[in-house]
């Protein structure tokens, strides 16, 4: 009798109820994960569909080759190059600061700093990445630009240099933290091999550790650059809203993101060409950052294979 009960309990019993709960729960969780996939699809759909409407009115050739950007104010013209130029200037300018400074910081933290010092400095630098970008914009306007104006009085209130500097500062911790991680994971075996050959510490750091961590370092560069491309509020405040192709970093320019903000706070009517241009510029921006992110992921996955 009791034996029979036990059999029933194993095969059926309450477990059927539990099974049903379990599988419902599983589908709920799965749907949550699915949201992330849907988000990607929705982003692509929204951008492509909006751009489609835009490019019904505007020729793609003009968009990618024109050097004048004025989709709202007449005479209208739709050359996106000035915006891409602004974005490039900020990205390259900030890279000029963040890549060397971040790499040198990473070398110092990984190879030279006392572990206790590293434990304090690394999170302190990471605070830089946690400060809202609007604050950097304010910092550029109220501190960096006046500083530049002291040296170059002709500097405008809005100028690319200040934007590049604050974006550079903002992405230093991305470079330093990720590169430091890569350098710390270089096995000590390699350092010892070089010391055993009579290398000095300087040589060990520069021609063993850095080359061995290179793929991680490069991945950090790309992530930082992609962050700089997408950076919005700091450059809107610091660099201004003048889409123009100029080599002078002391002048105002406009990035793709700043243009989107400009339309976002303006009162263009929905469906107008100005509104649709948001999506074309957004798609251009998205494509650029996506390419860089994929590239960085690819490099990182290669890097894992190398050391495991």
């Amino acid at each position, binding site marked *: 009798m009791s034996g029979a009960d036990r059999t029933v309990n194993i095969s059926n019993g309450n477990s059927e109820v539990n099974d049903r709960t*379990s599988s419902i729960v599983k589908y709920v969780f799965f749907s949550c994960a699915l949201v992330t996939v849907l988000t990607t699809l929705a982003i692509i759909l*929204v951008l492509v569909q909006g751009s489609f409407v835009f490019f019904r009115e505007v020729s793609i050739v003009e968009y990618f080759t024109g050097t004048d950007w004025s989709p709202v104010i007449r005479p209208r013209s739709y050359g996106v190059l000035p915006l891409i130029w602004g974005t490039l200037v900020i990205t390259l300018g900030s890279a000029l600061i963040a890549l060397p400074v971040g790499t040198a*910081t990473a070398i110092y933290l990984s190879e030279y700093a006392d572990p206790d010092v590293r434990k304090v400095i690394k999170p302190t630098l990471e605070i830089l990445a946690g400060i809202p970008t609007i604050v950097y914009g304010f910092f550029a306007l109220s501190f960096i630009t006046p500083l530049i104006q002291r040296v170059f009085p002709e500097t405008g209130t809005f100028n690319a240099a200040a934007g590049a500097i604050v974006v550079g500062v903002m992405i230093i911790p991305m470079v330093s933290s990720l590169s430091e991680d890569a350098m710390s994971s270089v096995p000590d075996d390699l350092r010892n091999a070089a010391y055993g050959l009579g290398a*000095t510490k300087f040589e060990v750091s520069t021609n063993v550790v850095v080359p061995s961590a290179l793929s991680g370092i490069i991945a950090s560069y790309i992530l930082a650059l992609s962050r700089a491309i997408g950076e919005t509020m700091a450059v809107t405040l610091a660099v201004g809203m003048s889409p123009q192709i100029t080599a002078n970093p002391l002048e105002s320019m406009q990035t793709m993101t700043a243009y*989107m903000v400009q339309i976002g706070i303006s009162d263009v009517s929905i469906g107008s060409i100005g509104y649709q241009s948001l999506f074309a510029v957004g798609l251009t921006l998205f494509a650029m*950052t996506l390419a860089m992110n994929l590239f960085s992921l690819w490099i990182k996955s290669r890097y894992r294979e190398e050391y495991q």
Partner: protein
Amino acid sequence: MSTETETPFGEPTDDIERKRLIGRVFVAICFASTLVGIVALVALIADVLYESWGWVTWEFLTYPPSQVVENFMPDARGAGIYPAIVGSVFLIALTAVFTIFLGVGAAVYLEEYAAESRLKSFIEANIANLAGVPSIVYGLLGLAIFVRAVQMGSSLIAGALTLTLLILPIVIVSTQEALRAVPDSQRQAAYGVGATKWQVIRDVVLPRALPGIMTGTILSLSRAIGETAPILMVGASTSLFVAPDGLTSPFSAMPMTVFDWAKRPEPEFQHIAAAGIVVLLTILLLMNAVAILIRNKYDPRA
């Protein structure tokens, strides 16, 4: 002792001494670079404090904004950031509800249910990519989907949903790490007494991982509270004099208000913007402090 004799190590000193010198210069450069970041951080904080000095008053915290500079002055009628504070708090509270549900759900699926499969690595790669999408693109998404297509308008809930999608990737990744840190022996102990998978997750895994989940979620929310671009695209208001009173009411938020002030030409508005930043950073600091407290309290390694 043996300065007058040569060492048996060949002709060491010149070449090595030179390299040592280069090495010392190199360390000095690396150290100076490390200081760049630190100095920039100090300058930024000092600048904000200096500019805001005397402007963060009780009235600033409790009054709605004003177009007239004089109203912000101490001893004046009173103007400030109040609706934006309330807006930000509501916005983050709502975002928290959505992200905890979606983020924990997705992480539990990936860590506890999904087999190591193409699907799982696809979802994870997709999440990693989403984390790198510029926040203003999320704003565009929110504008097209929540504001327009679903017709929520420029409402609190549209803003919260947009921010949710923005921080979801970070929350999922940090939650996955927290779940991974739960030892397998705990799960097996629960299976051993006859618990179903769902019971194991509910009664053993989630409670164990809760501090880690909380820490990661609060840190992500503190990123969301400082975001301007997405809510700007969704249509957060800069000239709202009352706090939002429902899910569908229009809203303003601190970073948006700061942006509005910072871009004004009148010099006084610099101080007012700085005052707004002080309030924003203080709230950020509090959120981070809570996250660190939780981590230190429950994490034996810290």
